[in-house]
């Protein structure tokens, strides 16, 4: 076989030959091709990912396993990770998204944790295929999550050119486990038997993620698309319950889910992580189709499968727990001493390698230098653009800003009855049983903000997650990062990737949150057009008393609206406001220390609320959208008067999207104290206006009234999807 056929470069093939000391056979080439693909080996990213800070007081497990784990309290640990399923969702949106959800759920289960929440981060183009794709993806995410019984408690969706043929579907799953219930791929011991559990293996997506997701798409690929995997949430549920029940017995020594490159990657990774060898007998693998070759069995990406190894003491109980869920675990091989990875099929030895060659042998791409890029010149041109009332309504109805209800009402956000705050809020809150701490979740993945300056975008993504957690006074425990980019062989993509990681690193260090895991998806590029570099950050935080959240709605008259941590010179760079005028400049670099101080102030205040009645983090749509959302989330019969009087800065002030700004509503009688506190923290503030009796929102800019809108009109503008089926975007 020509190693190029399985995606290896000539030099990689040479390295493989040297490791093996002979010409590998076809199956062995196939294994190298899959395990050394970008998707499995992280060859272009591993050295750069090493820049991310992994240590933190709450960290139980950092990157390296199936998911990161942080400590919620002495009893409960939280496993969480974001995973992408971009290419498959373009080929078949419903099944691609569904299997993406199934895959990340299995990662969490493989850590011994029960999934308690999902969040999805979606990107679509702005052509007219976008709504079909969105519709299918939402059906797929919901179809799987709703049926398996894990609530989708939040998410985000944005649009932009470049996502047309490369939509993004990133899903975050969060699970909990009892402290000390550590399982994973490390525990296999010599003499134990390896079992395969779940769906019978078919010819699904052979080389799918490993080969197809590891290179760019072009028009010619239409005919060589691999068979797409179909999601089966019912079997997924049985597999999840059976695996968790088995782990519960204490009889599981090691567990590894089957994802990209199926049995090949899961078994070789389990061997390497456990420091053992494996002998697999492929005749024992239950197959859905006749006459499957060893190659197909090893590389099939059939969903809903799990690899398990049982210990001597409790293995029988674990097996019984599995059969109670109607599944059978099929023995397919044994754990042997050394590090040899031997496959037999039809009585013949068909592969004989060192497992570590597959898992760690791939030559890695060197990382560039750890120097942040110089901030691009932004210039003031756009700041002088002026806006009218109808622009403001257009911003509310912009696809990047408008209400997401048409999407999230298709997700079950309440199952498991722990959801205090679901997708209608910017941060999700779970009140879990068995701990006094609430679990706070946020997700953020700016593409528009990273488009021109990936470093700024990386910082902003982390900053927004921390800011959203701060609106509840929650302490961030850990982050997961899903990085989506084009072809890493292109210098500009590699540079953007490194800058994005540097941005994430800087922000994570400044805000004191570790990154415990993540995912990299390269090759989001079709016919040479790449997506905006898109960093999707998920974060988990904790705080006591989760069932009494701090409001994000405007609940009464005579509340002063104050902008906390206002930039001295607000900019429209990267904002929806300037895009309305056809401009896209660099997003500002978030002032991390000021955000850290603002978050500290909010955490302190959240203990006693001290006159601050509502809080929101400023993001897309700027202060304007934050005010509108706070107003609409509040009680009827309350109006708002906004008054901006900063001459040339008034419009940028209203529409600047720099993260780290917070909108707070303060009791008139406490305004003095709050402003003093903020001054003490060294934070800039601006008075924006106040809530009043009535039903209108009035805006004055530099003394001129720009608009006076009834609640109904503002609400209709923000819910611009109303009347459209399913709320898809119509261009």
């Amino acid at each position, binding site marked *: 076989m020509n190693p190029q056929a399985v995606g290896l470069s000539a030099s990689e093939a040479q390295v493989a030959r040297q490791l093996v000391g002979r010409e590998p056979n076809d199956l062995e080439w196939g294994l190298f091709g899959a395990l050394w693909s970008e998707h499995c080996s992280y060859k272009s990213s591993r050295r750069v990912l090493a820049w991310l800070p992994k240590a933190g007081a709450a960290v139980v497990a950092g990157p390296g396993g199936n998911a990161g784990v942080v400590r919620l309290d002495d009893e409960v640990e939280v496993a969480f990770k974001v995973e992408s399923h971009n290419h498959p969702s373009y080929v078949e949106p419903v099944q691609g998204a569904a299997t993406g959800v199934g895959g990340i759920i299995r990662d969490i289960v493989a850590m011994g944790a029960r999934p308690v929440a999902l969040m999805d981060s979606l990107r679509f183009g702005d052509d007219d295929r976008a709504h079909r794709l969105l519709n299918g993806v939402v*059906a797929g995410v*919901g*179809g799987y999550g*709703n*049926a*398996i*019984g894990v609530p989708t408690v939040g998410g985000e969706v944005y649009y932009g050119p470049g996502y047309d043929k490369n939509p993004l579907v990133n899903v975050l799953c969060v699970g909990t486990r009892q402290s000390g219930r550590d399982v994973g791929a490390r525990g296999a011991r010599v003499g134990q038997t390896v079992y395969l559990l779940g769906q019978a293996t078919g010819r699904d997506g052979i080389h799918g993620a490993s080969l197809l997701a590891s290179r760019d798409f072009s028009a010619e690929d239409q005919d060589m698309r691999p068979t797409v995997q179909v999601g*089966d*949430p*019912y*079997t997924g*549920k*049985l597999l999840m319950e059976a695996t968790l029940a088995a782990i519960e017995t204490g009889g599981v020594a090691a567990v590894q889910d089957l994802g990209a490159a199926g049995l090949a990657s899961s078994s070789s990774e389990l061997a390497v992580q456990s420091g053992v060898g494996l002998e697999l007998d492929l005749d024992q693998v239950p197959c859905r189709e006749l006459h499957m070759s060893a190659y197909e069995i090893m590389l099939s990406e059939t969903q809903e499968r799990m690899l398990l190894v049982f210990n001597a003491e409790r293995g029988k109980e674990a097996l019984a727990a599995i059969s109670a*869920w*109607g599944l059978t675990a099929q023995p397919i091989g044994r754990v042997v001493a050394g590090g040899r990875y031997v496959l037999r099929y039809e009585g013949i030895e068909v592969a004989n390698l060192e497992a570590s060659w597959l898992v760690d042998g791939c030559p890695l791409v060197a990382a560039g230098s750890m120097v942040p890029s110089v901030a691009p010149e932004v210039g003031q041109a756009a700041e002088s653009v002026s806006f009218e009332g109808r622009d403001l309504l257009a911003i509310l109805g912009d696809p990047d800003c408008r209400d997401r209800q048409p999407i999230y*009402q*298709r*997700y*079950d*956000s*309440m*199952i*498991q*009855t722990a*959801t*205090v705050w679901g997708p209608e809020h910017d941060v999700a809150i779970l*009140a879990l*049983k068995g701990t006094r701490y609430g679990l706070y979740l946020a997700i953020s993945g700016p593409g528009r903000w990273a488009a021109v300056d990936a470093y700024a975008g990386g910082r902003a993504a982390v900053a927004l997650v921390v800011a959203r957690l701060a609106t509840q006074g929650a302490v961030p425990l850990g982050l997961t990062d899903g990085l989506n980019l084009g072809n890493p062989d292109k210098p500009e993509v590699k540079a953007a990737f490194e800058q994005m990681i540097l941005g994430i690193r800087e922000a994570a260090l400044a805000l004191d949150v570790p990154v415990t895991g993540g995912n990299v998806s390269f090759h989001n590029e079709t016919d040479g057009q790449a997506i905006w570099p898109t960093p999707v950050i998920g974060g988990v935080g904790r705080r006591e008393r989760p*069932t*009494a959240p701090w409001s994000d709605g405007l609940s009464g008259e005579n509340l002063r609206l104050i902008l906390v941590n206002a930039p001295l010179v607000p900019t429209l760079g990267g904002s929806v406001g300037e895009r309305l005028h056809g401009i896209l400049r660099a997003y500002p670099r978030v002032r991390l220390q000021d955000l850290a101080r603002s978050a500290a102030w909010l955490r302190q205040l959240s203990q006693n609320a001290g006159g601050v009645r509502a809080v929101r983090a400023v993001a897309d749509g700027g202060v304007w959208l934050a005010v509108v959302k706070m107003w609409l989330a509040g009680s009827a019969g309350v109006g708002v008067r906004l008054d901006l009087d900063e001459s040339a800065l008034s419009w940028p002030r209203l529409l600047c999207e720099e993260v780290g700004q917070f909108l707070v509503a303060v009791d008139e009688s406490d305004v003095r104290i709050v402003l003093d506190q903020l001054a003490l923290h060294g934070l800039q503030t601006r008075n924006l206006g106040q809530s009043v009796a009535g039903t209108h929102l009035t805006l004055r800019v530099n003394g001129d009234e720009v608009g006076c809108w009834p609640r109904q009109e503002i609400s209709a503008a923000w819910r611009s999807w109303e009347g459209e*089926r*399913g709320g898809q975007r119509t261009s």
Partner: protein
Amino acid sequence: MKTKVAVIRFPGSNCDHDTVLALERIGAEPVTLLHHADNLRGLRYVVLPGGFSYGDYLRAGALAAHAPIMDALQEAVERDQVRVLGICNGFQILCERGILPGALHANVSGEFRCRMEWIEVVSTPAAWPGFTPGMRFRLPIAHADGAYRIAEGERKTLWESHSVFLRYHDPVNDSQEYSPNGSVDAIAGISQGSVMALMPHPERAMEQWMGSDDGRRFLSLWLEVNR
């Protein structure tokens, strides 16, 4: 003595655990029974919880209707008037089994819907005098197939026999014709004899922080206990 309540679990049930917790919250003693059990262990109260019993790929509840536990349940209803509550998938299963009339079809939107709704009691079920017409509950729905359908001829009988138990209600427009899924006559739940069923989820509305605690009232009335 706590009232024991059977909660039936099919392999794809996913609201069984929430239902167990909810019943515990109102002081009952839930007992989980599996789909392949062939009797109800003498329990007098049974909940068929929500979920996707056997995947629900073919039709919601279609395969579960034939499970051994459903033979036992039907017999117990007919012989002993055992009190049954079907929630969401439970409602679908009861209709598929023919224990309740009609069927639950795809929502008119063609989409899954999860959100809070108001429902209103239309008629007092003979077996549960505690529910009185006009009573309102705020409960979440979460389903893709919640549109109640019944043959035109039987619809009349349904009303005449006071089997229409719950309807969706729109408090903003105080409308009787509002339905989030396109059910005929905005029907959200029906009751016949000792069996009642509804699409909304009372077990998800047990505390103020869940958005409503009306589920406590609902389940307490069903169980005939003071909450």
